């Protein structure tokens, strides 16, 4: 099953890279979700798989039975899941905010910080991009 999961991880990573390369920031978000899952699976699979034996210590015993699942990657994945969720929540808020402020989800149209050359905004700014956010914001409107 480990090898099957390795293939599955490859598919997940490829899909998320493809989504993250999209101009549409919503697709980018989907890619972020998928790549978090892929990363968690990498950690989990790296610790090897043990079918149906959670790392628990029986009542009265000092140590778990011999063939028990690897606890360390599980702990790491647990942390990673929660952090991944935090990241996603923030990214989602950012996308949402960007859409309400700029009216687009196309990252090519979001040019506040780096206006296109020859655009109104670029022309007004000093040559080496000393743009303040206010100036850029005005320029973009």
């Amino acid at each position, binding site marked *: *099953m480990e090898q099957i999961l390795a293939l599955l991880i490859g*598919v997940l990573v*490829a899909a998320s890279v*493809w989504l993250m390369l999209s101009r549409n920031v*919503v697709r980018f978000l989907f890619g972020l979700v*998928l790549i978090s899952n892929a990363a968690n699976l990498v950690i989990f699979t790296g610790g090897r798989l043990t079918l149906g034996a959670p790392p628990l210590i029986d009542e009265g*015993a000092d140590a778990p039975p011999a063939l028990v699942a690897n606890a360390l990657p599980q*702990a790491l994945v647990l*942390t990673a899941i929660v952090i991944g969720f935090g990241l996603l929540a923030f990214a989602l808020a950012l996308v949402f905010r960007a859409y309400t402020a700029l009216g687009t989800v196309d990252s090519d149209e979001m040019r506040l910080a780096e206006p296109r050359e020859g655009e109104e905004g670029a022309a007004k700014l000093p040559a080496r991009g000393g743009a303040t956010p206010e100036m850029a914001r005005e320029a973009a409107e």
Partner: protein
Amino acid sequence: MGSATGEAAAHGAKPANRRGQGLTWVPAALAAAIFAALWPAIPTVAAGEVLRWGVAWVPSLGVNFSVLLDGLSLTFALLISGIGALVMLFAAKYMEGKYHSGRFALYLFLFMLAMLGLVLADNLLTLFVFWELTSITSYLLIGFGHADAKSRRSALQALLVTGMGGLALLAGFILIYTVVGSFDLAVVLASGDVLRDSPLYLPILILVLAGAFTKSAQFPLHFWLPNAMAAPTPVSAYLHSATMVKAGVFLLARLHPALAGTDVWLWSLTLFGGVTAVFASVMALRQTDLKQALAYTTLMALGTLVLFLADGTSAYAITGFMAFLVTHSLYKAALFLVVGTVDHGTGTRDARILGGLARAMPVTAFAAALAGLSMAGLPPFVGFIAKEVLYKGAGELPLGTIVTGFALASNALMFAVAGIVCLRPFWGRPRGETPVPPHEGPWQLLAGPIILSVLGLALGLMPWLKQQALVSPGVDAVLGRGGEARDLKLWAGVNLALVLSLATFALGLMLYAFHVVLRDGLNRLGARLPSLDAGWDRFLDGLKALAAWQTRILQSGRLVNYMAVTFATLLAGLGAALIATAPGPIMLEMPYLLVKEWGIALLVLAGTGVVVSTNSRITALAGLGVVGVGVALIFVTYGAPDVAITQLLVEVLVVVLVALAILKLPSLEPETGRRRWFDAALALGIGGAVTVIMLMVLDVPLDRRLSEYFEVTSWPEAFGRNIVNVILVDFRALDTFGEIAVVAVAGIAAFALLKTKIAPAKEDAR
């Protein structure tokens, strides 16, 4: 090659800043005090003792601020402080009443301290720090007339060329450290055999030579030195003849016991030094500006010095090196100061105008004559003795014929240049109107040239003084063993060296007689040759264009391009790592799996396919949910129920949150275009690489030591029966705390972002 009219005008045109004016004599006095303090060390060092003193500076890096006083460093330190005192005295008068003369005196003094630190350093890193300080102070001094674009360009050029050399030098020092395990010079110098046998010897040598050759202006990196003559004359006299440019030569001499004695060393120093010497002498003949002519003869001297360091063992060659080093510093500094005095007294340095100055400037003419005779190598001056020893040394070298040829050609040319610089301006009739009627300089200007040139005569008549105090201890230090210095004699009998000297004089006289014709001829020729100076400009322009080009490519302002560059770099890194490890064939086995395992795998696969292919927001969301649930099922199947619970919880939250937001976002549009084909290729590449790496990881036996530690200590030490939970809240509790903090910060930030949506951007800006 620049106008020869006085820089006095360029610097004097600005309103005088009188601040610090009364204190400009202080540096000269301090330099003299340093000289006097070093003086008592002469007998001790001459007796073969090596004085060391140091304190820990950066102990963690093994860097000590330590001083090493042996024959080589003492000779250099005496020259630096002694000539420094005279030059600063000169500078105090020369710059009097000019723009920021106080600042100028300070720079000059700082430079002297840096230079002293360099030659006295007993640690490679300390040496490097002072090496860089000399580059920086020289930048300030060359660019002192900062209102002039030419000055600024020359200063920057010198800084960049010597700075690049400095970086190479640092790399070389670090390589030396990796070989011998210490930055201490004592250790490095004692490990010559280890260094020479090391496979890193060649890189070390190349890097150290790059540093030394840029600093000492060896061909083809020489062009910054003549340009550096844009600096006020005292700077030229001090930095660019007597001291800084000799730092490279000093370094080669210092590391001579550690690095010399191989064929690469022999050939590279012989060729670079020889070519520099001859090329520079020819260039010197071309100049009409006295200062430029002197600048090129300095290059010639540097080339000669490098040439004579080429051999690893010949005591004669090294004696010649030390003798010529001292000699050259004496007469060259004197001549630069003479030229400064002439400039001060007449307002010009143009050899085509100047003539017959001896009547108006008798003292200057006297000093010029003495220094010039020494430079021409006539008896009984030190220059003669140095030349004799050089010829004798040349005969001893394995590449003797080549070295003798280089030395003969450059000495004859030097003889001619001595005539042009020291004879013509002072004797004969005036050749044209000088901007200012010629008048003698005040004593502060004359002290330096007189003392230095008289010293050149005195040491020529009493060569044993120079031998004992300066040359022999230096030879011992360079060779790394004592008592081998050859004698300096004024009359050594009729021998090959004397014959060569006579040939030099004959050739030199001829060159002098025809130098005007030669100059014009060379100038016509020179105009057709490619100029390295212009080449430097093209190099810089090219560098800037490259920077602009790669910035345009890499920083296009489009997020997708940034992502593509990032992922392409990732793929390149993964690919390189895979190629480097060269994995053997990985056995893929068809596993016997339960139906539910296949089912889960297909579920995740299907979910992924849906997310990638759909254009509907809700369908994509459903696909994401399927993938998340699939992953949770994997966790629960393979013994991780806690993880599965968390995954499910988070998955539900994600779907709910995204669903809430996504309904307010516009629907997805289908994506097409060639660009996406490239993206797909990139994505497949990375996915494939990750799979291969994952398979390689699975091929390696698992190290379970850490897990076993947690398993056996979980109950006895932490009193928990759920090992995963114990790890999270006990063994790695701080990690969990950090995780909570991250989520909290993300939550606060997201909240802040969403909260501000009420005030649209337009209102913010206005």
